[in-house]
């Protein structure tokens, strides 16, 4: 049982079409329900960043850049470095995106990426404190959607994590109570885990993974799950209107966990690591 009341007529036709296909294990672009589109991850593409990555997920293209600077810690976490995530849905990426300051969708994207990175404990924030309570590393992650064919969450997380994992930051040391650049060499950020997110679309009780823009217009609702490692969900965002049957949640967890492991393997290959550092 599913409801389509809120869809205009052509969308209803598309919805029904998709649902029929899924019942047969098929999708419009030839994928099976749980398949991702092809993924390409390129790192270190912007020389003026500390780290950067360009991710193509099918027709969705996202770039993430990492910059760092010294700054003050937040008052409630004096012994942790800061992460600041900003995301923009550039108007060149889709006729649905408008120029101007980040709207609710861009803010949601930034906050979901932030949550995936922060709550998964990807970075050991305590290792980038130079003077507790006074001077820490501030890590800026800027995410730009350049071309949009559905599902910006997963490639945004992939690009951000790849940019962080390959970033080379300056080495600082404390001398006479001041934080100074110690030498020309660069170091890596203290990475502990490789979070990924999996976006799931629902047509009634049926699940599809990584919906395209066309599918997004027809599905009943959608949910994003961030997985920190083998069996730990670290962020969830139901990101569209619509009902999710309580009973389908088990399947959502099962499928997203499996796909997360696939993505993580793909990501770690791209950043040149085959295992998580101890």
């Amino acid at each position, binding site marked *: 049982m599913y409801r389509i009341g809120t869809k205009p007529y052509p969308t209803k036709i598309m919805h029904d079409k998709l649902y029929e296909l899924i019942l047969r294990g098929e999708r419009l672009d030839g994928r099976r329900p749980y398949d991702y589109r092809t993924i390409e991850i390129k790192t270190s593409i912007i020389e003026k960043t500390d780290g950067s990555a360009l991710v193509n997920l099918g027709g969705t293209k996202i770039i993430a850049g990492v910059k760092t600077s010294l700054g003050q810690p937040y008052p409630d976490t004096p012994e942790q470095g800061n992460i600041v995530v900003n995301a923009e849905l550039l108007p060149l990426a889709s006729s649905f995106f408008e120029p101007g300051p980040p709207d609710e969708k861009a803010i949601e994207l930034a906050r979901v990426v932030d949550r995936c990175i922060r709550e998964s404990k990807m970075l050991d924030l305590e290792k980038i404190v130079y003077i507790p309570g006074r001077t820490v590393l501030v890590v800026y992650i800027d995410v730009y959607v350049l071309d949009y064919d559905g599902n910006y969450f997963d490639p945004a997380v992939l690009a951000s994590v790849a940019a962080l994992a390959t970033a080379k930051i300056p080495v600082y040391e404390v001398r006479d109570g001041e934080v100074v650049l110690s030498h020309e060499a660069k170091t890596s950020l203290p990475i502990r885990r490789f979070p990924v997110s999996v976006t799931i679309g629902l047509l009634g009780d049926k699940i599809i993974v990584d919906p395209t823009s066309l599918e997004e217009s027809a599905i009943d609702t959608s949910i994003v799950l961030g997985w920190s490692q083998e069996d730990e969900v670290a962020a969830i965002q139901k990101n569209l*209107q619509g009902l999710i049957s309580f009973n389908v949640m088990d399947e959502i967890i099962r499928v997203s966990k499996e796909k997360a492991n696939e993505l993580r393997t793909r990501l770690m290959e791209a950043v040149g690591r085959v295992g998580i550092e101890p």
Partner: protein
Amino acid sequence: MEKAEQRLITEDGRRVDGRGLDEMRPVKIEAGVLDRSDGSAYIEMGKTKIYAAVYGPKEAHPRHLAQPHKAILNCRYHMASFSVEGRKAPGMTRREIELSKVIRQALESVVILEEFPRSAIDIFIEVIQADAGTRTAGVTAASLALADAGIPILDLCPGIAVGKVEGRIVLDPSEEEDKKGEADMPVAMAPRLDSIVLLQLNGRLRSEEFREALLLAKKGINVLYELQRKALSKKFASFSPMDEE
């Protein structure tokens, strides 16, 4: 979030404020508390205090935003400057903008928008004191305000957060538990449809913990659902026959 200096849960499963793990804070829910709006509600969960008001259906404005086959729903979740520790600067924070979106989408799941083509329904949620669980209390109050306004909905949407604190799954985390705990998961449902309308997670849960948390949320949601329905009955019972004429 991981290192809790003092214990938040005692050996026998009691929390700092004396509650059991599956116990929510004292709740007060009222409908029809603001006269100007078409529907309104007030909720207290512990020290969290929230007003919600609904205006509409009315003409969508500006016109080009109107939808030919349904109403648009606008939702603003806003916190008073004095509602938090310290003072929040006036203006919408990124957090408030995100929560306005997820609450609106939760309510769009149940409002029968097709009944009012070309029109708009505005929902305003004003947090006058924030002490954990404001988004779920907000959606609870807002869905009650929609019902109070007589807008057709598939169901009320009670919501509550569940948390993981020192390895234990707890209902309706307090602000301290939220800050020091390992996970916070707000959930809102349409109970009659056994469906989730709002779901977020900050923090980490293993698969089986997630399941446990979701079941515990459902338990709390059913209690709130009952309180919402009572508030609605009380509101409509308070009309004298003369009002109905």
